[in-house]
Every structure is written in structure tokens, then in C-alpha cells.
């Protein structure tokens, strides 16, 4: 445990001195938090939703909105659209950190002395993984709290605001978020073990954000309804996927191959 803790602290000391990483880690969550707040502000300051009734809304919104009226349901549907956007933060942030932390060890030739110590592969990967997951999850949670506070100030109907604290959001933010983070880290570790440039690792890892973007688009177009059942299934699937991915990440992290093949 001490080794994992030391790796996490070392990673943070190193990675956060990299301006590009710092920018990615702070800018994306900031943007994802600010964007829905701006939209809520604009929607709240106009009367565009005043005449909307529940009959005007797509049928899949009905179970989501419950007792809310047409305009409030519309507002809540907008609020909920950003739920999946929030889910992108825990995927992208750790991918950036993990990509830099492992490929960085290769390029600066620090991996050899590290591997010559009694530290195990699992300890290295857990340490580096958590160094990415912890800030990613924390920024997601902080972003969510800022969003909820902003919504509280800007949305007049408390019933809409209280929906931000219903089980759907709680499971999404506090369970799916960390699971997505773990997925991002495991993917980055696998890719980083095979490439020699952090930018290449990050670009390849970026492809794996596409499923989340797909979910976002699916929800926007009404093809997918993100409700409690969906999010619970997603959490279960991610849990299994994370175990499988971490197993493969450990397998792919071949000490000998990394040492003898790096350029």
C-alpha cells in the first residue's frame, strides 16, 4: 500500500507540472460544467418553454419526468442531456494522465530503475491508475456539485432541481463515473505499454471516448433513454469490463518487452 501511495504522489508531482496535462485536466471539466449552466441560464431567462405541454414531448420523457409539467419536463430533459456529457470527464482526464505517466517513464528512461526495485506490476499499474482516476473522479464530482448549485439558483421549480439528486444522477456520478475512469485508465495503460509517444497514446485512447459520445448523441436524438434501469445495466457492464480490462492491462505490461524494445 505504501508503494502505491508513493507512486500516486510521485505521479501527481510530475504530471501536474506538465502544462498540457494540467490544461486538459482543468479545461474540459470547466467547460462541461459551464456549458449546461449557460444553456440553463438562457432557457430560464426566456419564456420559450411556457406553452409546452407533456403531450408535446417525446413519449420516452414521460417516465423520466414523473409529476413534472410540460415546461418543467422540457427543462429537466435539457438538464439530463448533460448527464452523459459529465460522464466524459472521468474517461478523458485519466486517459491524459495515464498516457503521459507511463509513456513518460519510457521516454525519460525512468522505468528501468523503477522496474529494478521490488515493486510489482500490479502496484505500478494501480498506483498510476489511481493517480489518474482520483483527480478525474474528484473533478467530475466538483463539476456536478457546481452544476447542481447553478441549477438551484437558475431553475425556479425546486422539483426540477431535486431531480438532479435522484438515484439516476447519484448512480451516474458516484458509481458510473469512477467505473468509466477505471476503464479509461486500463485502456490507456494498455496503449501506453505499446507506444513510445504520449500524444500517440492519448490519440489512440481518445477513440475509446466515442461510445460515450455515441450515448450522448443517442440520448439527444431520443434513440436511447438514459433512465435508472439503463444506468444500472451500464454500471454492471462497466464493472465486469473494468475487471477484464485491468487483467489485460497487467498482461500487456510486459516488463521485458518494454525494456528491450523501447527506442
Amino acid at each position, binding site marked *: 500500500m505504501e508503494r502505491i501511495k508513493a507512486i500516486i504522489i510521485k505521479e501527481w508531482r510530475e504530471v501536474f507540472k506538465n502544462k498540457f496535462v494540467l490544461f486538459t485536466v482543468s479545461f474540459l471539466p470547466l467547460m462541461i460544467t459551464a456549458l449546461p449552466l449557460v444553456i440553463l441560464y438562457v432557457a430560464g431567462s426566456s419564456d420559450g418553454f411556457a406553452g409546452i405541454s407533456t403531450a408535446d414531448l417525446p413519449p420516452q420523457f414521460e417516465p423520466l419526468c414523473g409529476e413534472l409539467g410540460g415546461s418543467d419536463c422540457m427543462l429537466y430533459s435539457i438538464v439530463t442531456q448533460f448527464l452523459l456529457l459529465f460522464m466524459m470527464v472521468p474517461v478523458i482526464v485519466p486517459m491524459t494522465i495515464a498516457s503521459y505517466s507511463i509513456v513518460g517513464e519510457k521516454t525519460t528512461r525512468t522505468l528501468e*530503475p523503477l522496474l529494478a526495485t521490488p*515493486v510489482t506490476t500490479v502496484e505500478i499499474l494501480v498506483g498510476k491508475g489511481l493517480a489518474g482516476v482520483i483527480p478525474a473522479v474528484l473533478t467530475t464530482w466538483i463539476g456536478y456539485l457546481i452544476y447542481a448549485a447553478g441549477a438551484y439558483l437558475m431553475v425556479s421549480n425546486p422539483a426540477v432541481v431535486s431531480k438532479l439528486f435522484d438515484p439516476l444522477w447519484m448512480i451516474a456520478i458516484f458509481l458510473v463515473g469512477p467505473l468509466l475512469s477505471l476503464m479509461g485508465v486500463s485502456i490507456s495503460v494498455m496503449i501506453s505499454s505499446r507506444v513510445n509517444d504520449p500524444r500517440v497514446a492519448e490519440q489512440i485512447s481518445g477513440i475509446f471516448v466515442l461510445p460515450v459520445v455515441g450515448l450522448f448523441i443517442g440520448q439527444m436524438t431520443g434513440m436511447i433513454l438514459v433512465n435508472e434501469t439503463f444506468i444500472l445495466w451500464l454500471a454492471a457492464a462497466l464493472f465486469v469490463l473494468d475487471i477484464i480490462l485491468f487483467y489485460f492491462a497487467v498482461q500487456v505490461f510486459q516488463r521485458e518487452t518494454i525494456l528491450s524494445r523501447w527506442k
Partner: protein
Amino acid sequence: MINNDPIIVTEKLTKSFGENVAVNQLTLSVQSGEVFGLLGPNGAGKTTTVRMLAALLIPSGGTARVAGFQVGENDQDIRRKIGLLPESPGLYDSLSAEQNLAFFGSMYGMENIAEQIQKYLELLGLWNRRYESVGTFSKGMRQKLAIARALLHEPDVLFLDEPTSGLDPQASRLVREFIEELRGEGRTIILTTHNLEEADRLCDRVAVISGHLLALDAPGELRRKIFGRKVVFHLREANQSLVKAMEKFPFVSDVQAVDNKILAAVENPEEQNPQLIRALVEGGAEVQFVGELRRRLEDVYLELMGAIEDNNHGKN
């Protein structure tokens, strides 16, 4: 302070990368407290050998035991017992000297990290710069810090891979002096180097390898084995009659007169030189000095490498 317990024993140790055999059936043993040099040209398998012994690479064949543990079976135990200075120092530039050492100390599960950091940073003259980012350090300082890192957990065996490579003469000298200090403490050191003068000065024994083992012995013994022992007699005047007088002795060979010197290969100079000096004086020579013609380890190395080249040409 060398004792007879071998701390490293390899038996037909082999490492292949695909078709390429980097280390071929290397058999050697290193005694505890010995400074052991691994010499050879680029690509000779020195670093691969060190990496196998440091439990970083898995041997393709043969066996190796380090500090009582089998490579490939007890790798975690071996890593606890060794310290490694790789070819490149491999330090975290954005961390301070102290943070670098503290991190590696944690990897060894050390409890006295702070004391050990102070001990080695003071010893290597880096204590006053402990809070500075390693990225600001000169090459020599980085190398010293990397040596401190390798020693931090007081390993039984220290592997130094090209410790003075790329350093300026002053920094090289500092590193060499520190290795000499470590030698004085009786530490077991495996040193790979291209600097043959350094190996000659520091190593108790050297192994010359080029994929496989070419020669293994103390530098002095290697010189004797390859070139024999040559004695130089400095005379007021050398002539052919004195050369002939020397050639009469059965234990003398290859006698030459060069300027005012006579050079001769002598089997046992300690025992036989007095007879030779007597013969020279009786032959009318005025002996000014007598000394041994000291061959450099570089000559031994080049001779061995030349033999390989000749062998390869012969095959072709």
C-alpha cells in the same frame, strides 16, 4: 575484503531476442566484495547480462544465482538485494533530488529513508541542493544522484552500467573516486565500461565478452597470459653482445635491444632478474634502471578483439 563466497554464479547463461543471441552460454562467478568488470564492444551483451542479473530480463537458457536467489524464480528477492545504475541515470526531472530518493526508498519499503538520503547526499556533495529540481542538475550531479539512488537501500550487489559514460573528465574522476571508496568498503560491484583504464584501475577481475566469454581474470593476469612479462633493462649503452648474453638463459625469450634499453620476456622476473643483471654487468653493461614493461588493459582488449576479427575473417 574479497571473500570466497560467490555472490553471483552464472552457468551457461544465454539470452536471445528472436534470432539474435545477445549473450551466449556465459559462465562466471563473482566473489563477495569483488569489483568485477564486464568489458566488450557495443552490442557485446554487457547490458543484457546486467539486466538478466538484475532480474529485469528472463534468461533464454542457463542459470544465474544472485545473492543466493535464482534469476527467473526469486526475482523479487533479487531486486531487494541489488542496486542498479542503468546506462541512463533515469531520474524524475521535475522532482527534487530528495523527492527522487524518497520515492525510490519507498519502493524498497525502507523505514530509515530520511537518514539514508542524508547519508548519501552528504557523501556525494549534493545535500545542499536536495530541494532543487533534478532537471537543473549537471550530468555529473545527475550521475551522482543516480548512484545514491542505487545505494540507498544498502544493496549486497551494485550494478554500474557505464557509470562515467558521457561525463566530463572532472565528473568522471569524482564518480571513479566514489567507486574506489565503495570498493574500500568491501562492496560487490559489477561494472560495465568502455573505459579500459577505468576498469584496470578499479576492477579486481574483468570478463571480456563479445556475446560469449573471451577472457576472465585479474587485469594483471590477463596481461601476463596474453603478453607474458617483459622486463626493461635501462643501460648506459646496449649492444648485440649483451643481447646474446641474455639469450643464453632458458627462461628468457624475445630479447631485443632498443636504443639504450634491452627488452626481454622473462618467466619469473622476481626470481630471475638478479641472474640477468649479474650477466649484464659481467658482460660490461652499466645498469641504470630495471623495470617491468607494463601493458595496458587496452592492449589486452585489442588483442582479444583482434583475435575475434581474425577468426571471423578466417571463417569467411
